[in-house]
């Protein structure tokens, strides 16, 4: 390995990368945009526009509606005067939930009977609907409970102890904040996408322009050429990781629970997979367009299978096997482990070892194929 030649290529790659303002902008802005988008996007659907048809029109019914509003999941936007009015708002998409309170609501309460309140939810988005329904149920039972306690107190009987007191604790993420889950995911995803894409294009473009041949004519070895091309990309990768972490900490207030050093080390391990995959694709594709399609062919399934959006544990068995073949799965587990749970190498070593193994296989195959393509 002649390091002077490696350095010569690295200087050339740096110069070319930073000369192309658009690529620099795209590469540097992509992580920012993703973090900000995912940071604010939330599957926690709050303030759902709600239509209400209150036939009771009593202090009791208004109290119930206040309980819905106070939950912050429902926001009463429309008042209907008929069932038809409720249906129209939901059909038209202006409201995502409808609450109908029967005329005898207050009367039944006073007679210690159970009034029936209808809550209809637009379940086109199943996740949002599920949340809304369970919140509505909780509101119902807590209103009932409070009512019973009040009545018992009024009749002079001491309030009974609730049967089971469940003290729920959300570990690692006590605020159940979505961004704590998503920011590490975005970090992993951006690393995978940017590194694979850049390493693929730096080789394919040079081959299409015929300049790769100019390099091959020189005494440089293929390993020196590859390393010279990959070093600047690693720098760019680290710049991206740092940007994302700074944004997470100072903008979203995410605190990194674990070791940043360990995180940077696993990023290095992950480079072998991503840069290797890019190089591998460059040796398979004949044109730039083909290479771009191949990158997407590899990256999209790996994103879906990695657990970035859908938890691996919730996948069907067969898909789980596939997800264990995707290096991104391990990287994602590691990054979340370090940032959110604050665990160290003592817990993460199996994932780190597997990531090293995949990185080695992918990178070695890529280097061998690259060398063969050059001859």
């Amino acid at each position, binding site marked *: 390995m002649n390091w002077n030649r490696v*350095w*010569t290529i690295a*200087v*050339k790659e740096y*110069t*070319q990368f930073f000369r192309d303002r658009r690529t620099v902008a795209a590469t540097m802005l992509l992580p920012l945009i993703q973090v900000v988008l995912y940071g604010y996007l939330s599957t926690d659907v709050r303030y759902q526009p709600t239509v209400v048809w209150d036939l009771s029109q009593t202090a009791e019914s208004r109290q119930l509606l206040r309980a819905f509003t106070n939950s912050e999941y429902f926001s009463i936007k429309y008042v209907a005067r008929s069932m038809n009015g409720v249906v129209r708002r939901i059909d038209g998409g202006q409201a995502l939930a409808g609450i109908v309170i029967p005329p005898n609501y207050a009367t039944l309460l006073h007679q210690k009977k159970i009034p029936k309140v209808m809550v209809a939810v637009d379940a086109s988005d199943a996740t949002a609907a599920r949340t809304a329904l369970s919140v509505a149920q909780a509101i119902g039972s807590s209103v009932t409970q409070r009512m019973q306690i009040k009545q018992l107190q009024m009749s002079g009987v001491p309030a009974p102890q609730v049967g089971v007191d469940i003290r729920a604790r959300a570990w690692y993420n006590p605020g159940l904040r979505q961004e704590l889950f998503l920011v590490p995911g975005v970090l992993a995803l951006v690393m995978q996408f940017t590194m694979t894409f850049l390493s693929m294009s730096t080789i394919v473009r040079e081959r299409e322009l015929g*300049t790769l*041949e100019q390099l091959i*004519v020189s*005494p440089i070895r293929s390993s020196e050429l590859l390393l010279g091309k990959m070093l600047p990309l690693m720098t760019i990768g680290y710049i991206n990781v740092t940007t994302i972490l700074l944004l997470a900490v100072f903008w979203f207030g995410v605190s990194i629970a674990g070791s940043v050093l360990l995180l940077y080390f696993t990023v290095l391990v992950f480079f072998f997979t991503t840069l290797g995959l890019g190089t591998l694709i460059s040796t398979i594709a004949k044109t730039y367009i083909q290479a771009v399609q191949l990158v997407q062919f590899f990256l999209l399934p790996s994103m879906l299978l990695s657990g970035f959006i859908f938890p691996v544990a919730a996948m069907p068995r067969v898909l789980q096997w596939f997800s264990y073949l995707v290096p991104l799965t391990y990287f994602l587990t590691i990054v979340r482990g370090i940032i959110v749970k604050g665990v160290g190498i003592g817990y993460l070593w199996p994932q780190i070892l597997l990531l090293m193994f995949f990185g080695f296989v992918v990178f070695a195959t890529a280097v061998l194929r690259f060398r063969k393509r050059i001859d």
Partner: protein
Amino acid sequence: MIGATTVRAESLTRKFGDFVAVDGISFEIHAGEIWGFLGPNGAGKSTTIRMLCGVLQPSAGRAEVLGYDVARDPEAVKTRSGYMSQGSTLWSDLTVEEHMRLYAGLFGMYGAHQRDAVEEWMERIGLAQRRTQLAGSLPGGYRKRLALACTLLHRPQMVFLDEPTSGVDPLSRREFWDLIVHLSEDGTTVMVTTHYLDEAEHCDRLAFIYGGRIIALGAPAELKRAPSAGVTVEILSRENLRILDAVEDAPFVRSASMYGSSLHVTVERSDDVARLQNTIDARGLGVQRLAPITPSLEDVFAGIVKAGRPA
């Protein structure tokens, strides 16, 4: 070094699938020689050069450059030689100076050594004023100059130039050849391909490749005198086109073509000259002058190609 052999090719062959691009060619190039490699497009010139540079593996046969086997020790060959490829592709987003530094680095020149060589060649090739210009915005002629400078920067003992002057204006072409002659005077061996036969006159020896085989080899003067070159006759007449029409397909005529205001006809042997005269007289066409001349290289190669082409 004069008299030593710089390049030795023995039955060098390259196949691409079923297609034989270079078909067992053998030749030697001596140190300090300017060796011209001529032939139509697709005849195998670039393929031969790429094998000699250690870029392409030969399918059969062997070749040595500067004493190193090109197949077994391509790195030694690459370090000591320079190759300017046909496209002479540059990075359009790198400047003149960045190109020179890149090549210097790739060929093992660093620090002050690199700086001096880059400065020297930028002056020598007339690019010092354009050092910060991107290669993509250079005029065609300058691009070729830059490619040549990058090839010569590390002072190779053997230089392969694949069509260095294509697309270059006549004045720059002359400068190119002045430089090539200088190189050879300094002891550098030069293998050069060209389509300009006037340039070929600068070469010490010429090889003509056709269909993957070398069909003629020698100094320009030798090739013109060789019996295989036939006899070239210059005809001056007001009825050149009708004469051309009349003699073109005669069995003893190898080639006939307009050459400015005169007509050059190459025949097999000297006694064919009389038959040529008879053919023209028989048609009743008037001739002001009909006499054998020293053929130009163009006549020689037109004749060789026709003789070598399967009937």
